[in-house]
């Protein structure tokens, strides 16, 4: 688009409006009062957190299924040869594994600084 030279001359001759002389100082005062927002980067990404939750859920399910009404514990499952027997006689298997899973979940949330309510600043 071709410029209208007359209008251009008028606009240029008119110059720019100027704010108050202390404009920059006022902006910088406001800037210094407001904290510089940084990008929020969780230690563990979304995929990692989902994976952890799935693992925790799996542990809970296994602990419920294999230490349920029939008294069978995880160490007796044919497909799982790990020995999960702990020497804490007063604690049932379900409670023990549930407490462990909960503890791991809380620890991971604290370490990842994720929290549930935080959103990333873009």
């Amino acid at each position, binding site marked *: 688009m071709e410029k209208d030279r*007359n*209008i251009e001359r008028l606009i240029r001759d*008119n110059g720019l409006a100027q*704010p108050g002389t202390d404009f920059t100082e006022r*902006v910088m005062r406001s*800037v210094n009062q407001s904290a510089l927002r940084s990008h929020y980067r969780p230690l563990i990404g979304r995929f990692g957190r989902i994976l952890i939750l799935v693992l925790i859920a799996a542990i809970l399910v296994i602990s419920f299924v294999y230490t349920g009404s029939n008294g069978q514990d995880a160490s007796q499952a044919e497909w799982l040869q790990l020995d999960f027997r702990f020497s804490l006689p007063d604690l049932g298997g379900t409670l023990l594994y549930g407490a462990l899973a909960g503890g791991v979940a809380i620890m991971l949330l604290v370490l990842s600084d994720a929290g549930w309510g935080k959103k990333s600043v873009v």
Partner: protein
Amino acid sequence: MQDHPDAYYIGRVKQGEKNAFAPLVDAYKNMVFTLCVRMLGDEVDAEEAAQEVFIKVFNSINSYREKSKFSTWVYRITYNHCISVIRKKIRVIDLADEVPDDRVDEGVMDGLDRLRDEERAHYVQKALEAIPETDAFMVTLFYYEGLDLEEIARITGYSSGNVRTRLHRARKKIYEVLKGLLHKEIKNIL
């Protein structure tokens, strides 16, 4: 006056050095303030808006990617902020102003050339106030800052065809207003 290009100060601000933002404010404050005046039509409101624009620029500088010019990015924030200020004020923007005369009146320019500088500036200011805010914003970017249609389109979110139409309409309206003001002046003298 800036000793370094914008990118130098932007980098330092991103690294957390707040004071490096001051040269950027100095470099763009007149244009940002002028654009706010064009949009809001009031210098007090414009100064407040310009200040808020720079605070927004500072707070979101980490999201600035060097894909576009820094000035383009700043002007886009300016435009969006002014639009939101206008919406808050619920000002009705009449975009359907009909301008009957499409001819460029050279007589207008002759008349203006005979005026003193202050009078001419006053008339130009009046003419800019008479056109819709967005059009005045575009006129300033096009004729003063020398931006092309594509850049103005990126800043305002309009298509470049729409920008062209608005600039054309603004030009006609400016001539019409100036012509009216000059006629009034001549009548007053007589």
